[in-house]
């Protein structure tokens, strides 16, 4: 009986895998089976059927492995893994404050450790920009539940407003930073006012369209934005208007190392950038944590959970959404002006849809609404591709595949925590426990 069963299993397994391999071969046949290339302006093709064969074989055994894995190991393994994750999660939750403090201390000490060099600081700054953008978008997507696919547009507004203000009017970074935030927030309001009445999916598409419009305008408005050439030689920030980060100083400002009477090091500039973006990101985070406890933050979360109920409770959905949208845009504007000053050069190339997709992926993979999840996801999504830079071609391929896989495997994100901050019957369990 059992032998027969196994045989049947084997047969169906082979059939399943064979079918999968067949489909894979059919998928690969036109796209991988022929290689097209230019010969003096005329296109020709040559066959490459071995690739099709490889695809089919890989899928055949892959499918088989997955099936066998699911049948024999997965039920027990899944439980074990779940249990382990649960206990780790508990430990993390119990010592949450302690762990976060340790993490913060590590992040602050990092630039003073021997590990800090130009390269590692640059990478850290790069990751922190995305952490900040992720936290900013988290207000819009995670808290208010509005899907914004054009977040990079506000980032671009911030970057360009700093670049233009600084190069045309010689304004300092510290004046431009709030201005860039205000500009980005105004754009958020202008865009949000007409479209925030729409349902979620439509909002996604309109914001996507807006992101494209901004990019096209930046690309074509040559006199104002420099078009595809972008804006170069954007000034670096000063040390709060007190000192400068060059060896000799300029514009009447003393150099940084002389002001503090320390040895000159080219690292100082990078350390300053690091602390600047760290501070900006932490401000974003603190702001989010605090505003969740204010009425407007509560209203965002309530709106995300049930819009109809909110309306009947007298919350104005449009204004509430608008505030989330504008605040999210403002943080993108801050991040944008930081980006502009760090790079020293911006062009529309930096603000494509793919950037929006990456930021959204960070928020979603991190588990919408989870602040720690955003950090983890930025490290994975930004640092990962950066490390595998040599495989540049396959970077985005893996990125897209990963996005699908994580969604299918854990639709709620890696740190799936999306609890409203307040619940109406939060103490029901406690009461029941007491009654027993």
């Amino acid at each position, binding site marked *: 009986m059992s032998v027969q069963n196994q045989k049947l299993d084997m047969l169906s397994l082979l059939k399943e895998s064979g079918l999968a391999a067949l489909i894979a071969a059919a998928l690969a046949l036109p*796209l991988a089976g022929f290689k097209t290339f230019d010969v003096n302006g005329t296109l020709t093709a040559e066959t490459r059927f071995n690739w099709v064969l490889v695809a089919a074989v890989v899928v055949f055994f892959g499918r088989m492995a997955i099936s066998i894995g699911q049948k024999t190991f997965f039920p027990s393994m899944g439980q074990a893994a779940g249990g382990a994750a649960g206990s780790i999660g508990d430990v993390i939750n119990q010592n949450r404050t302690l762990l976060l403090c340790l993490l913060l201390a590590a992040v602050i000490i990092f630039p003073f450790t021997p590990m800090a060099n130009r390269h590692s600081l640059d990478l850290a700054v790069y990751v922190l920009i995305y952490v900040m953008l992720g936290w900013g978008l988290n207000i819009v997507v995670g808290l208010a539940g509005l899907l914004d696919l054009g977040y990079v547009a506000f980032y671009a507004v911030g970057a360009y407003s700093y670049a233009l203000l600084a190069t045309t009017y010689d304004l300092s970074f510290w004046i431009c930073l709030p201005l860039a935030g205000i500009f980005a927030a105004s754009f958020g309001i202008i865009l949000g006012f007409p479209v925030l009445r729409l349902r979620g999916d439509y909002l996604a598409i309109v914001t996507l369209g807006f992101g494209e419009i901004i990019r096209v305008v930046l690309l074509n408005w040559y006199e104002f934005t420099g078009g595809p050439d972008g804006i170069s030689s954007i000034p670096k920030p000063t040390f709060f208007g007190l000192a400068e980060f060059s060896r000799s100083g300029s514009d009447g400002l003393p150099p940084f190392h002389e002001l503090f009477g320390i040895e000159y090091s080219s690292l100082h500039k990078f350390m300053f950038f690091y602390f600047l973006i760290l501070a900006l990101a932490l401000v974003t985070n603190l702001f989010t944590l605090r505003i969740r406890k204010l009425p407007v933050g509560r209203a965002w979360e309530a709106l995300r959970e049930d819009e109809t109920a909110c309306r009947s409770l007298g919350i104005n959905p449009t204004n509430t959404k608008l505030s989330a949208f504008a605040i999210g845009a403002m943080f993108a504007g801050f991040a944008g002006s930081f980006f502009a000053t760090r790079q020293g050069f911006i062009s529309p190339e930096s603000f494509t849809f793919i950037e929006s997709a990456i930021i959204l992926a960070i928020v979603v993979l991190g588990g919408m609404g989870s602040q720690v999840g955003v950090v983890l996801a930025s490290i994975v999504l930004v640092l990962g591709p950066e490390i595998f830079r040599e495989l540049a071609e396959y970077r985005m391929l893996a990125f897209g595949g990963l996005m699908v896989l994580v969604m299918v495997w854990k*639709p709620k994100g890696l740190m799936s925590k999306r609890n409203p901050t307040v619940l109406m019957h939060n103490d029901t369990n406690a009461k029941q426990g007491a009654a027993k």
Partner: protein
Amino acid sequence: MEYFTQQLINGVTLGSIYGLIAIGYTMVYGIIGMINFAHGEIYMIGAFVSMITFLVLTLVGGIWLPLALLAALIMAMLFTSIWGWTVERMAYRPLRGSFRLAPLISAIGMSIFLQNLVQVLQGARVKPLQPLISGGFEIMEKDGFTVTISYLQIFIIVLTIVLMTIFTLLINKTSLGRAQRATEQDRTMAALIGVNVDRTISTTFVMGAALAAVAGLMVTLYYGVIDFYIGFLAGMKAFTAAVLGGIGSIPGAMLGGLLIGLIEAFWSGYFTIEYKDVAAFSILVLVLIFRPTGLLGKPEIEKV
């Protein structure tokens, strides 16, 4: 007047292509209520499959042109449908019944994946193809400006009309179409009365992909250059068309596609060509603000 007529012809041609892609969006939205973000990429794959078919046909020796077109059409529809089916099976079906944004995000991931897959397999450079159909009729001439309608434009418009007729009959008269409409109205109820819901949804994706493949074939012939990135913009515009016509409504998608094509042609004809994409998106925003249900869409009733 002559210039106007010329832009009209160009616009209708372009609109036919957008309309064919828009049907895929509108059907999928109607049946499972998600924006199939990867649909533009499916269209791009259709364009690549037809290009490769033409290349292979020229490699094995010249072949009678109508036969070559037919072969490319069948190949593109067949292989692209398989891609469409696989995308639904891998990326969307496991997420059915998950929270609202999950399939949309999975679709964005799929779109990035497919784009880069084609880039890795076929290279990032644009692929130029020699024009296969050339020549056309001169309709009128005045002050040295000739209005022409090329054979290719006639081919595109006629093929679109034929396909849309077949498609409308398929939806309205066959049991498959009935199953689709039933699933669209109420998935649970349709399952209870014996409709295989999963299969019906898969068929919807396959049909949408097949139509997108035809659009891909047309674009390959019409512009003669394709690359791995064409899906994004075309997909956006086709989605705009679907929304403009009223998402969920198939005649609406055709109408919307036609309108978007016309708007784009006239905009590039009379204003600046750089901002033609901005024009299409602005229309999307305006439609959504003033008529969120689109031209032919039904108002959505929110049940509490």
